[in-house]
Structure formats: structure tokens, C-alpha cells
């Protein structure tokens, strides 16, 4: 199957980007260097093209009920211009995907949402919403608009002034997780104070056809998926397909450390199973790791206890540009999850000393 291409594939290519396959898309992984891009976001501002993310539009009298019953957070608490992070779970409370749900202005007087599945999951999530709508006899329109919306993240301590200077009206009033329609470089964008880096900033959703106008007006360091990964890892954000994977590494939100996005006082698929987990407690937990010995933990490496018994697997790992040390995530039995615990990671056959660390690894906003 040919790779899907984001609207600015050519623009990025001309800027000298390297590309990688991600979720079926051909995406820029690096423009200059991960270190340079990472540093720009931590100290100044950087822009990411994340148009590979899905966009599912839900509207109608039962849009709130439908979306609420398929996500773990409390959709009914969202006013227009609010957003929330949530997991999408199956009947057993296992994470299928994680998402951010934006409440858009009402359409014809009916509540309207746009939620953002991970790259490559948009069709499955669209189908999930449609199937359940039909099964439950709800009245809502569900539209997969992934090919209509470009999505940019503008992140870093100077993101607010950069985007603010390009927009009419005041974006500085937006609180974290609030969003509004605003004009950026004369293009109407859905602008949200959200992100995946641990820094302040915005995510912009805009018509695919206007992508180049907005991208080129954002005068700052372009960043690829490489820096996005080092930034999100430092900031303690999980990555779908890596820190949980429905088929190969099924996890509940409690194991994955996103229990804050589970509202058991709402009705949703997986609620009863998750209530049981919250009462009985979890056996394994996603921890943060820092390597003491030289070496870098990578996805799939074994984690052992100090007696060399394998107790878990690394889900994500990198050399942290901010901390200048090797960090990672992985699931281990809860008795090994306490920060300060000494563990070992097997790096190409060699056992390397590691320590459990609290996440996020850095101070975030």
C-alpha cells in the first residue's frame, strides 16, 4: 500500500527534511537535527506538521452520548471551546487508542465534537463510532475528516507570542486545553492550547488547502517526528503503538499511567472492567527508567531485576537531549515500580544498571 502523504510533503522535502513511515504516512522525521529541534522547543519555539493525526467529526442530538460512551473521560463536562484527553477502551478496559476531544461550536444547534485518533487509526475509530451509533440507535453524524484537516503543533516558551502576532483577536486568554476559532495568517484555524512536548504552545487545525500559507507564516524552527518523540518522552506522555499496543501489548489506562483520564462516574465501554481494576489494583505499571551505565534503552529490550530475572520490556527509550542521559519507559510488576529502585536493562546482550525515575523526567507546564 502506498504511503499517505501530508499536504506539505513537497515543502518539507525542499526544506531538506528526512522522512519516515509512521502510521501509514510518509512524515518528516528530521529537518536539521533532533538535538537542534528539541532545543528550539525547550528554549524558544518550534513547529511540527502532524497532519498524519486523524480527525473524526461528530455532530447531532446524541453526539455527546455517543462520544461519551466510547471514551473514558467525561465528554458531558465539555463546553464549547473545551477539550480533554481520553482513552478509547474495549469491553475489558484495554486501551484501543488515546485521543483528544475538542468541542467545536454547535452545528445547527447540536453539540459538535472533533476528536483526534492516532495516525492510522482514523478509519477504525470512524467505524467504531458508526457501528455503536447504529447499535445503540443514536442520532449523530460521524464523519472521517482526516483528509480535510492539516494539523500543526507550535510549541515552546515563545509559541504564544509567535502565534499571537499572526492572529487577530486574543489567543492569550486561552487556558490550557481551551480552544477557539481564530484567524492565523489570514486563515481560519481551530487553535487549541494543547500539545505533546511538555511546553506551552498551540495545536492548529486548518483546511488542508491552506496548509502552506500557515506553515510558511510560522517563522520558527521546523521539527520532525524525531524531536517530537524525545520531547514527549521527557514530558512523560505515552505513545500509542509503543507504550501500549492493542494487539501485542494490551494495557489498561491504570497500567499506562493515564488513569486521570478515566471517569468511572460516567457510562462508557470498559467502565465496569476498569472499576474492577481500580478496586483490585494493578499488577504491572509503566515506569520511567534512567540508565546509570552507558547505553540507551530501546523499544523491545528486556528489563531484569538485580537477580537477572526478566521482569519487563522497554516500550520507549532514547538519549534525552535535555538531561543528556538515557531514559526510557517500560512495564514492570508494581513491586519494582517505586522510584529509586535499581533495575537492569539488557542492551545488546549486556546488562546495564538502571534506576526507576518518576515521570515526567523534566519540569513541564
Amino acid at each position, binding site marked *: 500500500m502506498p504511503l499517505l502523504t501530508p499536504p506539505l510533503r513537497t515543502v518539507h522535502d525542499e526544506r531538506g527534511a528526512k522522512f519516515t513511515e509512521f502510521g501509514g504516512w510518509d512524515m518528516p522525521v528530521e529537518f536539521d*537535527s533532533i538535538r537542534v529541534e528539541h532545543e528550539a522547543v525547550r528554549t524558544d519555539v518550534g513547529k511540527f506538521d502532524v497532519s498524519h493525526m486523524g480527525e473524526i467529526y461528530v455532530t447531532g442530538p446524541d453526539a455527546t452520548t455517543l462520544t461519551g460512551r466510547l471514551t473514558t473521560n467525561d465528554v458531558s463536562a465539555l463546553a464549547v471551546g473545551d477539550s480533554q484527553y481520553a482513552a478509547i477502551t474495549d469491553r475489558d478496559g484495554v486501551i484501543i487508542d488515546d485521543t483528544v476531544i475538542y468541542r467545536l461550536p454547535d452545528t445547527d444547534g447540536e453539540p459538535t465534537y472533533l476528536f483526534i485518533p492516532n495516525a492510522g487509526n482514523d478509519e477504525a475509530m470512524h467505524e467504531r463510532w458508526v457501528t455503536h451509533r447504529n447499535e445503540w440507535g443514536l442520532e449523530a453524524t460521524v464523519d472521517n475528516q482526516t483528509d480535510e484537516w492539516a494539523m500543526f503543533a507550535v510549541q515552546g516558551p515563545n509559541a504564544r507570542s509567535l502565534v499571537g502576532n499572526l492572529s487577530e483577536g486574543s489567543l492569550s486568554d486561552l487556558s490550557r486545553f481551551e480552544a477557539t476559532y481564530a484567524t492565523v495568517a489570514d486563515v481560519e484555524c481551530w487553535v487549541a492550547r494543547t500539545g505533546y512536548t511538555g511546553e506551552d504552545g498551540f495545536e492548529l487545525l486548518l483546511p488542508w488547502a491552506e496548509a502552506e500559507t500557515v506553515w510558511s507564516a510560522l517563522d520558527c524552527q521546523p521539527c520532525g517526528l524525531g524531536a517530537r518523540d524525545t520531547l514527549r518522552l521527557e514530558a512523560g506522555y505515552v505513545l500509542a503503538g509503543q507504550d501500549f499496543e492493542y494487539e501485542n501489548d494490551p494495557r489498561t489506562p491504570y497500567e499506562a499511567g493515564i488513569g486521570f483520564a478515566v471517569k468511572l462516574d460516567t457510562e462508557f465501554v470498559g467502565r465496569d472492567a476498569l472499576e474492577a481494576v481500580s478496586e483490585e489494583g494493578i499488577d504491572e505499571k509503566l515506569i520511567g527508567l534512567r540508565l546509570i551505565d*552507558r547505553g540507551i534503552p530501546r523499544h523491545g529490550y528486556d528489563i531484569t531485576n538485580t537477580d537477572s530475572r526478566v521482569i519487563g520490556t522497554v516500550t520507549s527509550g532514547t538519549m534525552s537531549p535535555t538531561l543528556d542521559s538515557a531514559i526510557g519507559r517500560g512495564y514492570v510488576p508494581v513491586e519494582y515500580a517505586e522510584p529509586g529502585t535499581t533495575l537492569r536493562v539488557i542492551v545488546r546482550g549486556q546488562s546495564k544498571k538502571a534506576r526507576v525515575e518518576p515521570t515526567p523526567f523534566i519540569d513541564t507546564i
Partner: protein
Amino acid sequence: MSFDIPDDRRYLASHEWALETADGVRVGITDFAQDELGDVVFVELPDEGETVTHEAEFGVIESIKAVSDLYAPVSGEILAVNEALFDAPELVNDDPFGEGWMLEIEPGDDLESELEALLSAAEYDEQIA
């Protein structure tokens, strides 16, 4: 994008170079290879006195995003290891054909045929084009 490919040395298809010097044969990776890897953060090399074999693995290089094996362009005994790389692995990015060298090898009897089996600068250029 164009890459430096000095024609004073020979190349392995896996992106290592070999340069004959007064002391032996110096080994490193190419400009193209360091660019593909991105920010190098870690280089794992054998010790002085160990032997390496033509086209066999001798070490590992890691960047922020990837891990890659290193292959020896020629066989021989290791005379010196570039220990500067342990503290400053970014030398591989900054100067892959100079300060970023990895090994100095005392070549064996097969040096001539091993060098012959490697690619010229022009051939390597064609391979990465």
C-alpha cells in the same frame, strides 16, 4: 544534498572508510552515514590489541534515533582506538573523515585484496546516489 567523499580512501558498501596511513589503516564512517544517523550519542568500540575481520562487525554506533552496527573494511589488529569519541561522540557528526575516526588497524597479509574489494570514492558515490 551532497556529501563529502574524499578520494584518498576506499569504502565499504555499509558506509565505513579505510585510509592507509604511515602507521596502518585508519577506519571511520562516511559523511553520508553520519547524516543518516543524525546526532551520534554513543560509540561502542573494541579494545586495543583485539582483532577485526574484513566485512565483520566490530562495534556499534547509536544516534538519538537509531542503532547501527559497524563493519571493518580490512582485517587486522587494533593499534589504537579513538577514545575521544567516548566523551565527544558528536565528533563523528562534525568531522567523520578526520577527528571522528574510530580505529587504527595493523593490517594483515590480505590487505591488498581486501582494499581491492572495497569501493572507490566514485563507486561509493554512485551507491549512495
